[in-house]
């Protein structure tokens, strides 16, 4: 499963995955906040730390976004198929303490790149915090449920990673299981990828260990099948 997920993004990265070199920077704090509506509003609060004894200018950074989804016939997803697409983003901005950083969006064939530029130096051992925000069409919307499954990969160590996914609907499922605040906290070494899934429903359902849509639609399907069997036996 993990191998499949790694392959998902493999073409987007050439990452050092083995020996540890002297690192120049790390992401000491990375807080992801996703507000799920028809679009997702994504906010990254990133703190970069200079690990060397010379000032470092972060310069150009990239956020590469790719959406992997099944082929669709009308609105029906075809199981066991897969297509990779660029993510449509809008209202992109990067800023820090009143400073607005230059950002641009490049849409490649099957992925989107948000390029930001930070030319403020970070003194040795010091940090620089900045925020990147954008709207993206990454919400997987159904009839009664909507969900997001967000991969996070990096070529730089993330020491403290926090993820929060918010919606007006009820949280029915989260993987890894959701805490209170943040919903998930961990760290992410350079070259690795983590996934976080959150599902919400318009129905007043509790948070469950399995996907809510499977429970509800599975129950209805089972009910109809029982009715069908009963009907056939009469």
């Amino acid at each position: 499963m993990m191998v499949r997920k790694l392959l998902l993004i493999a073409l987007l990265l050439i990452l050092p995955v083995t020996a540890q070199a002297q690192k120049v920077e790390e992401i000491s704090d990375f807080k992801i906040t996703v507000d799920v509506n028809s679009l997702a509003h994504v906010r990254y609060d990133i703190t970069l730390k200079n690990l060397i004894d010379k000032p470092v200018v972060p310069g150009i950074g990239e956020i590469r976004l790719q959406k992997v989804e099944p082929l669709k016939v009308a609105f029906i997803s075809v199981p066991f198929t897969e297509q990779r697409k660029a993510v449509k983003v809008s209202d992109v901005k990067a800023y820090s303490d009143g400073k607005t950083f230059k950002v641009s969006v490049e849409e490649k064939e099957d992925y989107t790149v948000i390029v930001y530029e930070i030319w403020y130096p970070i003194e040795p051992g010091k940090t620089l915090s900045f925020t990147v925000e954008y709207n993206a069409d990454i919400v997987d919307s159904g009839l009664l449920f909507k969900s997001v499954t967000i991969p996070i990969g990096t070529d730089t160590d993330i020491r403290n990673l926090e993820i929060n996914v918010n919606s007006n609907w009820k949280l029915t499922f989260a993987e890894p299981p959701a805490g209170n605040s943040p919903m998930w906290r961990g760290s992410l070494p350079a070259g690795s990828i983590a996934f976080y899934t959150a599902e919400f429903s318009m129905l007043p359902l509790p948070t469950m260990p399995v996907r809510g849509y499977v429970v509800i639609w599975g129950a209805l399907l089972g009910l109809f099948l029982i009715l069908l069997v009963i009907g056939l036996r009469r």
Partner: protein
Amino acid sequence: MAVERFRKIGLVGIIITLIIITINTSAAAPLQVNIEEKIGSTVTPDGIENNGNVQFSYQTNVTGFVNITNNDPDDYLYDVWVAVDIPNLKGECSYEGSRTDVSAGSSLAVPDKINKQGVFNTSGANCFIHIPVLAPGETVSVFYDVNDSEAGLADGAPFVVEERYDPFKIPSRGEFTWTVYLNVSPNITWLGNTQLPNTATASMKIVKYLSNDTMHFGSQNWKTLKVVGTPTTNNGNVNTYSGNYTGAADSTIVFSRISLNLNNPSNSVNTSFQVEGNYTSNDAFTTRFEPFGFAVFEFSISSGNVSGAKVVDVFAFGNASIAVNKSGPDANNNWMGNATITNTASGLTYVVTNVTLWATQQGDFSNYVQNNNFNNLNCSGGTALDSPNVICGYEPNQQLTESTSYTTGNMEFTYDQVPIIWANATFKLIEDDTNGWGTASNTANAANITYGSDFIVIEKIYVIGTYLVKVTKYVQANASAGDNVFDVWLVVENLGGERSPYVYVYDLIPERFSEYNWNDNWTDVRQDGNWVNNSSMFSGIGNVNNPMGGYTKGYWWRLYPLEGGANGDGDYMDYDEIDANQSVVIFYQVQGSGDFKVLDAFLVGIDPMLSMNEQTSPKITLVSGAKATSYESVMALATAFAGLVAIVSYRKRS
């Protein structure tokens, strides 16, 4: 409302008229002695704090001029003597002009006739000036220097300069913009060491120049340098200007009509402007504190001077006549004489301080006539000075306006021949702004022929430098090793002057090539088909499959920091550089098969941290997006279908 407005306009008009009248009535005296002090300061940045504030050091030199001007359009002035008291005088005052008859110094011999109480006061003076003749409209300037250290002025300046850059460090090799916040306020501490009055105000103009000229506080490495955006100020005006120094700057900013109350530290001028520059150097460096221009302060302080120099006294006179009247002898050989002093100048007023009358014997210039009992009664209104010699002294202290005269009382004596009666007089200009002599004092910036002012604030910003790291790739057939085997040499060199950070070297294996004679060990130099020399420089390796079209594998090698100083010739057998860790050689072999294309192997990449391109740190790449994991639509469709079938089936059965 309209009436009120006109009333206000009328009031303003009256005030302006009064100001004009005041200015006109404060014209200089016929003999004007101005003390003008000049402040020259160099404000040099020592560094920038982490909040972007520039740390400045100040060096100041105060000098002065005693300017003596004959403002009378018609009258010559004679025997002009000026005594000046200059606290903390350094050396002596001096005349450095072209006239040979003008003298100045601390120990000039003032004639006894002048150097006495009531005529020319020299008390406390340490600078004396003598000008035999001062023509109408002529000015003589005498220079002096203030001992700045003794006066507590050397390490400060009249203004506190606060400057902040945002950002305060910029990368080299690219167009970058930074904002300069320049604030200037009175330096109360420094001003407290001066004799400037508490009410002094400074009128100021700040001219900001950008410079890429090393002779003018710049650096030739600024390939472009210009002001962008709109400068701002909270005090006075701001506009662009072509000054008397142009350098290669695209634009210059002038902040003018600035007024500062020198008694109020919160009274300041706050300006901001943006600079865009591209600093590109052929040398490798980590960080430089580089000048990008300077600001020149032109200012004048309304009254007073820094050192407290003041005019003690002035002696001078203009055109006049002296006449001696003689009558006698009567039957008893009695003679009478007096003297008349007449002011023949136009517009000058004198005070006659001393007149002396005396008589010498017939045909003789020096032997006085002598009378026994010659006393004050013989000197009407005067004093017998040296009885029995016939000499009368008068101290009238009488002012003579234009064309008026003073006549002494009669000197009476007895002589049986024909005496010669002599007279001399001492008179001088009165201290009066209209008809005599006057003084004034002011302070301004020291002049600078090149920049206009010698009050200069130098500006520097940190530029973050780069390393010069180069990789050269060789692909050579090696038939002895095997069919279609190629040797690949990657030569990494640090051409820079400083040690590099870790260096990543990237390379790709084209399609229809495969690794040949490799093992997992990259430190076994010359033992097989994959090694790094020096092996101690090898820090790691990684790879990725199908990195891009036409290539089956991508490799990166991480090397420990390379020492600077390689010659950059790409020689993979330069063992001196290899031993010195200035060059590192990565060697591997590949073997082609099928329709392989050797040309595809001529591809290599390098990414030294803090590299030469725009990005000066490793580019951070984050990956995110979405993975659709919900099949709710399928489940809903299946449920709907099952429900439909169940309902249809149920109806059929029933």
